[in-house]
């Protein structure tokens, strides 16, 4: 069985590499043939027209696309994603500056989404059919329908502008470095509260809805009725039978959601001025910074694949049937 699992893992790994390679190749070609020019910012009344051709030459954009692609593949095998046109440093080192924030921010938001979604669904299903349950359902639907930029702006208006409780943007205060470690940590925390709420609200409602529906379905299933007839207590029934049988689809969604979060939360990052991967990617796209766009996509792709893999294995761990399905 263990050998089969390792083989299955290996197969998955190879497939993931092929998917990534295809995705990057497609993106490479798409970028080269899409309109726009990375050297456009070097065109101005004050700059020499010759500067553009010099910059094109140094970016390697004067070479045929096939040669550029060949160079790209060769570099990729050595782990070199190229040099960012905008930052004039290696793509890896640019991404290194933005990725840690995105990982921490995403994981925190993910944790909030999972925990609140889980407890809210549980709380709601236990009161199924009551006004509380109906109210939670209606509110969650309304929150889900509101775009995150509206939530962000609203939160800034209320908590930053009207009540003046939280800062409206940024990751730290200007004098953060001169404070003690505890105060620095607190400073980070206070800056993160509104962005975390903005980013997490939508996800909480998604997890809530998935889990509540599954719990509802499991509650009414025959095996639960059967177990109930044996006189098993409701608490034990929920804990040992209903939750484990309802949580599978939520884990699948969690894998996708985590991947999306790790790719960057553009809108939240822009509204609250946070230095994440989403903002980096959009800046790269707008300035046609091809190596950086590919770098951001590559990192996003890897993170999405990894989080889905993680979700699958958690599901497999919980349900042996899924593991067998994966091996087969």
């Amino acid at each position, binding site marked *: 069985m263990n050998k089969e699992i390792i083989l299955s893992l290996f197969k998955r790994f190879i497939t993931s590499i092929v998917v990534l390679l295809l995705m990057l190749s497609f993106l490479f070609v798409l970028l080269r043939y899409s*309109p*726009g*020019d990375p050297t*456009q*910012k*070097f*065109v*101005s*009344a*004050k*700059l*020499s*027209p*010759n*500067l553009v051709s*010099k*910059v094109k030459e*140094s970016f390697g954009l004067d070479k045929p696309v096939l040669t550029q692609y060949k160079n790209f593949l060769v570099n990729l095998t050595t782990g070199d994603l190229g*040099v960012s046109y*905008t*930052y*004039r*440093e*290696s793509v890896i080192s640019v991404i290194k*500056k*933005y990725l840690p924030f995105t990982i921490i921010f995403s994981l925190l938001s993910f944790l909030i989404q999972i925990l609140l979604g889980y407890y809210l669904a549980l709380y709601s299903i236990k009161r199924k059919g009551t006004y509380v349950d109906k109210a939670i359902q209606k509110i969650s639907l309304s929150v889900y329908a509101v775009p995150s930029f509206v939530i962000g*702006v609203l939160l*800034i*208006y209320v908590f*930053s*502008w009207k009540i*003046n409780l939280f*800062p*409206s*943007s*940024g*990751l*730290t*205060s*200007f*004098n*953060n*470095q001169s*404070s003690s470690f505890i*105060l620095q940590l*607190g*400073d980070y*925390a*206070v*800056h993160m*509260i509104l962005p975390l709420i903005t980013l997490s609200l939508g996800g909480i409602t998604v997890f809530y809805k998935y889990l509540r529906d599954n719990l509802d379905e499991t509650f009414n299933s025959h095996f639960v009725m059967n177990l109930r007839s044996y006189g098993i207590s409701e608490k034990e029934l929920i804990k040992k039978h209903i939750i484990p049988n309802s949580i599978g689809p939520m884990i699948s969604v969690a894998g996708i959601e985590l991947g999306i979060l790790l790719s960057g939360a553009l809108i939240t990052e*822009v*509204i609250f*001025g*946070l*230095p994440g991967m989403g*903002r980096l990617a959009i*800046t790269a796209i*707008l300035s*046609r910074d091809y190596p950086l766009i590919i770098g951001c996509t590559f990192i996003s792709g890897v993170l999405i694949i990894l989080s889905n893999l993680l979700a699958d294995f958690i599901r497999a761990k919980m349900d042996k049937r899924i593991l067998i399905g994966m091996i087969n």
Partner: protein
Amino acid sequence: MKKKLFIITLLFLVLVFLPSCSKKSDQIPNQVVIGIDSDVESLNPLFSFSGYENNISELLYLKLVQSDWDDENGSLVYSPMLAKSWKWNNDSSSIIFYLRDDVLWSDSQQVTAEDVVFSFDIYSDENIESKLYDTFNNFDLDKTKHIKIKKSFEVIDPYTLKINFKKNSIPSLIDIDLPVIPKHVYDKLDRKKFAILEKEISLVTNGPFILKSWDKNQAIVLTVNKNSFLYDSKHIEKIIFKIVPDYTSRLTQLKKGEIDFMEDIRTDDIPSLKQIDFIQLSPLPAREYDYIGWNNIDPETLKKSNKIKPNKYFGDPLVRKALTFAVNRQEIIDEYLGDFGQVSFGPVSPIFKSSFAEIKPLEYNLDSAKYYLSKAGWSDSDKDGVFDKNGLKFSFPFYITNGNPRREFASTLLKNSLISIGINIEVKKMDLQVLMPKLFAKEIDAWMLGWVVGMPLDMYVFWHSSSDASQLNFTSYNNKIVDKYLDEYKITKSEILKDELAKKIQILIYNDQPVTFLYWIQNLVAYNKRIQNLKITPLEPIHYSWNWTVNLSRLGSRAKTGK
């Protein structure tokens, strides 16, 4: 469950209240926070291409001379900076600079003439790809446009430098207007990899400010350089450039007093800002204008045979004049710019007082538009409501850029006006990155865009017909007399003569109407009234920010409405 809830609540409270304690120490009064929309890419003046990159790098690095705006004459003037004085020779073919001997780099090394020579050397090196590459036309250059250093510079002593210009050139102080960089820091770097290698070196600067920190996409903090001769203990100690990408968030922070200074205020925010007693609104004298470009040549012929043929619609100046008559510029100004817009009728901003030609703009008049169209041979021969000529319907696509409500409004207005006189246009929105290559290739017939007039005034790149030097002449405007005047303008030394030439050029362009000039736009800045000594000129408002002071008794930390 209750225990868990208690712990969560407690954690939340700790998170909220701990920083509240630190928040109070945030109020360092002798500083100014400037809100900007995006991070800069480089603070090295060699690569400071964008507006704020330039502004910040000029606070960190000194130039030989400092430009300033003479409001009375409407022109640039230069004052001593790194150079305490200078002396031209009789025929202006060389200049001697006497440098200050009290300027230190931030690593305590002395700033000398060698640094100045090195700066010219590196700025003009093709391997560096600096922002000033291939702009040193008044120097002796080699094939790669690199300045011939030995021929051009003579270091007389560490603080005296002679610069020799090219024979028969017309040099001015603009030719030496560049921030000086340290030789001892950059000399050892491989020039072919310079742009990448310099990133790994901490900045060594000599300006009125020192870089304290640069948190990517968060803030750039500059502190005053107490060793600088520009230092004054009464002036501000710190400038923070806070990066807030979202306009609404930036505005909220300005109103809260978290940000002290912000540019590009939208006109619809003026009423709410006027109600806040600690906010001052100030327009920068206009250097920016919107225009409608009419391609003067036929794009299809150019593409097919690389030949020049007049545009089938806009090749005739009479048609272009008619189209200008059909644009209600005042309505656009009233709707979007209010008091901060002014009808434009030429490429010279009114701020250049002595170069500005007083011409009466073509007022909005649909009858005049129709008259000029019929004079150009256009008529509605088949009575379908659309003008035609030799079987060609007057109907064309009109391009504007995405995300500019003012231009969207202007294009709708234009469309309605043109329909009423018998011209059909189809407004197409496009990303600027996509539109620009089409403009360079002269592929499209009509579009709306904007320009910022340079300092000092330079019309050559926009209006000269030679394709080599005038890459921004998107309309392919060609008037030999204008070309002649532009050539003369370039080589003329006398300011009076230059002003005369500029006026003649404006009149000729006005007669030809290669584009329809729409309106001058004043960039509106808003700042906290506690900032004092702020100088609003057509140059960037933070130009002389080391002279700013802060009224410490006036902390606009929370908006108080003046109702």
